[in-house]
């Protein structure tokens, strides 16, 4: 176990506020968009979620690193314990780091893992104060340590995290074409577990000539409007009748392809406790979320309807086509991290293939 540097460092926000703490992970500075997540477990999964690309992540749950980091074992060509092949956040901000960890499944400390991936982090921060600031003023750019500010949303983040080439995960005869905008591994696992062959293609791949039974649009980072090629490809698919399912960024891209609009939320939803009500019912599911943009429900064309709504702030959490098998959700039914309550949506999609 490597020693934590522990030197003083600070989180600087673009409005000039500073939050002091001690350094751990890689000993360097980093810049990004500062966002917070209120989940209480699952830091290995969270930190490898590609949707965090370009972001400095603040965890509101103060005790982090308790159970270390699991091994790099691979199943089905995917890291078993992580959501992508690398740490995606630019930097990590927490309150209390567990310098000693313990778990049967761990092989290294969070600190060592961050060093390995060259990601800096800070502990000892009043993360509640940071969170309140972000909540009141909206997400902000910031740096960990002294370095220039950098706005990740001006970049095509999806291109950074998407697979570079087509890859097939062989299973049963049914095939899902998965447009990878930064897909979480557990989405792929969800299909493989259901004996579905997954054809994983880059975000801008023209899939019109591919042979598949259903189309899936993955989650991913940043502003959906950056993904013009994906939207264009989707528009073509919407003319057909093959089932389409989207998650998170996939929900926004589907909406944009359908002709609706998206907008940036003040501070997004990043947590494991978001209640989503299925419209027209009293059924509510607790969901895992990670997004900064949302679909503007009012802009939905008439052949589309809201499917789920957030019980806290009434924002859109999913849409579906009124006659064709097209639907998508803003939350993460694949969980990891978070509750698995909406896992049945995969069954629903698979049943249509």
């Amino acid at each position: 176990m490597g020693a934590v540097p522990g030197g003083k460092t600070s989180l600087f926000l673009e409005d000039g506020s500073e939050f002091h703490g001690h350094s751990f992970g890689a000993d360097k500075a980093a810049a990004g968009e500062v966002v917070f997540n209120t989940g209480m477990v699952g830091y290995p999964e969270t930190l490898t979620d590609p949707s965090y690309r370009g972001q400095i992540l603040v965890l509101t749950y103060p005790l982090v690193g308790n159970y270390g980091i699991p091994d790099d074992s691979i199943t089905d060509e995917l890291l078993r314990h992580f959501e992508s092949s690398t740490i995606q956040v630019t930097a990590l901000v927490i309150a209390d780091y567990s310098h000693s960890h313990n778990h049967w499944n761990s092989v290294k400390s969070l600190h060592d893992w961050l060093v390995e991936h060259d990601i800096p982090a800070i502990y000892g921060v009043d993360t509640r104060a940071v969170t309140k600031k972000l909540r009141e003023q909206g997400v902000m750019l910031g740096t960990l340590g002294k370095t220039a500010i950098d706005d990740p949303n001006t970049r095509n983040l999806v291109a950074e995290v998407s697979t570079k080439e087509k890859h097939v995960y062989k299973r049963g005869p049914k095939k899902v074409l998965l447009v990878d905008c930064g897909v979480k591994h557990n989405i792929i696992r969800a299909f493989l577990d259901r004996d579905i062959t997954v054809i994983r293609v880059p975000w801008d791949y023209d899939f019109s000539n591919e042979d598949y039974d259903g189309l899936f649009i993955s989650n991913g980072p940043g502003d959906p409007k950056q993904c013009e090629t994906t939207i264009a490809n989707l528009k073509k698919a919407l003319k057909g009748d093959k089932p389409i399912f989207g998650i998170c960024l996939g929900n926004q891209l589907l909406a944009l392809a359908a002709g609706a609009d998206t907008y940036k939320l003040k501070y997004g939803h990043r947590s494991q406790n978001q209640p989503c009500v299925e419209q027209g019912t009293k059924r509510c599911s607790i969901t895992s979320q990670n997004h900064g943009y949302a679909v503007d429900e009012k802009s939905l064309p008439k052949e589309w309807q809201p499917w789920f709504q957030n019980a806290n702030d009434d924002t859109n959490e999913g849409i579906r086509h009124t006659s064709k098998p097209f639907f998508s959700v803003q939350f993460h039914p694949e969980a990891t991290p978070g509750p698995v309550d909406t896992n049945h949506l995969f069954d629903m999609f698979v049943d249509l293939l």
Partner: protein
Amino acid sequence: MKKVLIIGSGGLRIGQAGEFDYSGSQAIKALKEEGITTVLINPNIATVQTSDGMADQIYFLPITPEFVEQVIEKEKPDGLLLSFGGQSALNCGVALEESGVLKKHNVKVLGTPIASIKDTEDRDLFVKRLDQIDAKTPKSIASNDLKGALAAAKKIGYPVMVRVAYALGGLGSGLCEDEEQLRERCTKAFANAPQVLVEEWLGGWKEVEYEVVRDSFDNCITVCNMENFDPLGIHTGESIVVAPSQTLTNSEYHKLREIATRVIRHLGIIGECNIQYALDPESEDYRIIEVNARLSRSSALASKATGYPLAFIAAKLALGQSLVEIENKVTKKTKACFEPALDYVVVKMPRWDLKKFKEVDQRIGSEMKSVGEVMSIGRTFEEALQKSLRMIGLGVQGLTMHTLNFPNPEEELQYPTDKRVFCIGDVLKAGWSVEKLYDITKIDKWFLYKLQNIVECKQALEKGLSKPLLRKAKQLGFSDKEIATILDKDELEIREERRSAHILPFIKQIDTLGAEYPAETNYLYLTYHGQEHDVTPSDKPVIVLGSGAYCIGSSVEFDWCCVNAIKTAKELKKTTIVINYNPETVSTDYDECDKLYFDELSLERVLDIYEFEDPEGVIVSMGGQIPNNLAIKLHNAGANILGTSPEDIDRAENRHVFSALLDKLDIDQPPWKELTSLEAAKSFANMIGYPVLIRPSYVLSGAAMNVVWDDASLIRFLGEASEVNPEHPVVITKFITNSKEIEIDAVAKNGEVLIYAISEHIENAGVHSGDATMMLPAQRLYIETIRQVKRVVRAIAKELKITGPFNIQFLAYQNRIRVIECNLRASRSFPFSSKVFKHNFIEIATRAILGEPVQAVDKSTLDLDHVGVKAAQFSFSRLKGVDPLLGVEMASTGEVACIGPEINDAFLKALLSVGFKIPQKNVLLSTGPIEHKALLLDSVKQLRDMGYTLFASSGTAEFLRRHDVNIYELHWPLDKKEPNILTFLQQGMIDLVINIPKNNEARELENDYLIRRTAVDHDISLITDPKIALQTVEALDYYRKNGLEIKSWQEY
């Protein structure tokens, strides 16, 4: 649904304590909001739920099917709530359903259906139901007799765990390593319960629980999960518990969460419940230990830990509402359908009182023995843990600062007592490795590493102080006092040093959503891991200090006082602040005060809050002895104490000063002296004459008060129980036999008495006032005695310039009264006095304290047309081996009170409320010394005339025969001859035992002990006091002729 009956939980006892006042109160509020008329049955008079403004009709009656049925007949409710009164209410409800009473009166059980309750209560059914959905339970076999249990154990393989069905707090459950232990445990268990479960032993597995909520639309959420610091094998009520879980990965957390929702849906629970797991520390293998289909101690804790009002929501769900419709009362912006995100860590620490019972096994295990609990909040585990260690009130300053001694740490660690956590601190300090500790204790290493951080900081402090080290120590939860002690300085010196270095705590909110949404919450704690406050100071608020942990002698009654003080202050348009850390209380509910500081009641913390809030002042007279003790310290530190001046409080607290004051006022007191050597103690005792009451200085390992009858017992007691020296003096007081004890609860303003209530104990002096049976108004006092009491009360109030509540206790012998105790604060009996008199003493006291105009009550309790009787609730059945005998040291864990048209009615109802059963046929008599035999002779004849068959031990039998009473003689237990008393007791052939203790021969004492203990172990009604025996016989006779009155409090 127009009218709903709620069943309460009765007197506080081990396994079923104050948490049900919280849950019942929330349920009543939730129902009232819907315009539903509420009827409540609960004999626990000290609760908030049985107060004015709560239920529309309140019945102070026993929680038994017979009484509940009578109330149903009278009130004709449409619905019944069973899940808010603990196991007592649940069992009562199941019995009513099984006997067809609910169907007959067309009463609907709201929330979780009875069938689901049975599925969770009957272990065999439970396992079958869970097997249906492939949810894993421990390998287990239900047995209805000993033979079955032995066969089951053989099949599973020793060691096995034995669990008793339908038991609260794991009563009777435990580990059996071999056949002999199994035999012993099962024999006892079958005396109380129809079934036991023999299970595979999962020692060393992690224990994790989830609080689950489900509505009738099948929405199901988990509000909180919790992890036990102590691995499986120690009852969750005896464990240190953290929320949320700390050592579980995402995969483990959500695997168990998913199983929880699946199980609860399958069982069909509607409302709130709790599911407990064992989790393998080496894999993701798990077992479901149990489901509690009701609000529980854990749910009260979860509610306070997260800010999610579980009981309130559960009541709404029972009415058929959906989670999606109910507002989140904390944020007022979001809905009840969500799972709280915590941005802090919570530690629950049990509070034990085992030292009060010298015979009890001090080790903790699968049965609950703790009497209360505390909850602390911090931004690190270390901070929260150290807070909680101070909160339990053992005089401990933190993990590493205590006066305990562990001569054999290995044994302490392996077979833990309630002090294990301190032993861990000690051995870490002595250099033991975390690995070694883990091998012995199986406590997750993560927790042990955290304890090591604290120990290392202590070691650094011993080498001297620096600013960064001081900050670190504060962040690891060290108190100023602990740091001061390490550095041989004064607490306030460190405080000043700290303040000038700008090392200050910050106030943070508990908002259920990790700051994601703005919240109007008033739920606060302090931490050294912050750089800004979440709140601003209130405008000249009034701070009420709460009661702290419930323990023997300080319980729900002080919470009632606090809640009523807040209520009155609110009515007077004051902004109210409460400081308290007891999760079982109503005063810590989100909707009681304007600001709640869930934090320590220490000088340091109260001053922190005082300095921030700059209040009008602090009320210290409502929460019992903890705030009372802080009065003078706060005053000296410059805080404004409202009510009686702290200097005058000190005059009453200081034995010497108070004694001189009584002499000056010409008020009689028993002769006493403080002595610093055994010799001096002996000669003083001889001078005033035995018996004497001895009261050693309270030290952690020492013992408490006792009455001694001669030199030999004086020497034995003082010699073995404590050291006597100038630092630890002993107080010896003349013990006056055969005298009555009288208590007065009163309120004064500027020394003028505004209201008072005089009550009388049924037992003679010698039984602690907390254990005694109390009558209000006094029934058997001379007018002259009452006149003298009033005179003394007025004189003391005037001399001490009392403003606020106070209580004085007297001994009365013939017409002479002597003061034995005076407290310038609310006493245990204030709710009793207030509710029987129907004048709220606390409301009057609070008005007086806040300087508001208040009218004296020009009425005496003697004018009442009814009588109230308060009886103590004991927990002897849970304290294995303890002699259920009453003495000068308090032993009861709770109390009840009932009201009736006259003494016998109220007395019998009170007795039935604490578990007495009306004897059907056979009574065993062993009536002690000759004077008591004579005293009870007429009563015995009365029993005979009522048709009871009488059995007696040899001496009693001989005495009774001489007086022409026909009696069956049984042999003493130690005679080992049949027919033997023990056999009769064990075989359930005796309905009532009257055993009056003697104080002579050791062999006789042992015999008496065996009779009493066997009676308790076999749930047989037991009476050990001659005066209570007389009253009971009279009451039984009254009951045969008149029955008992079923009237609500409002009707009196």
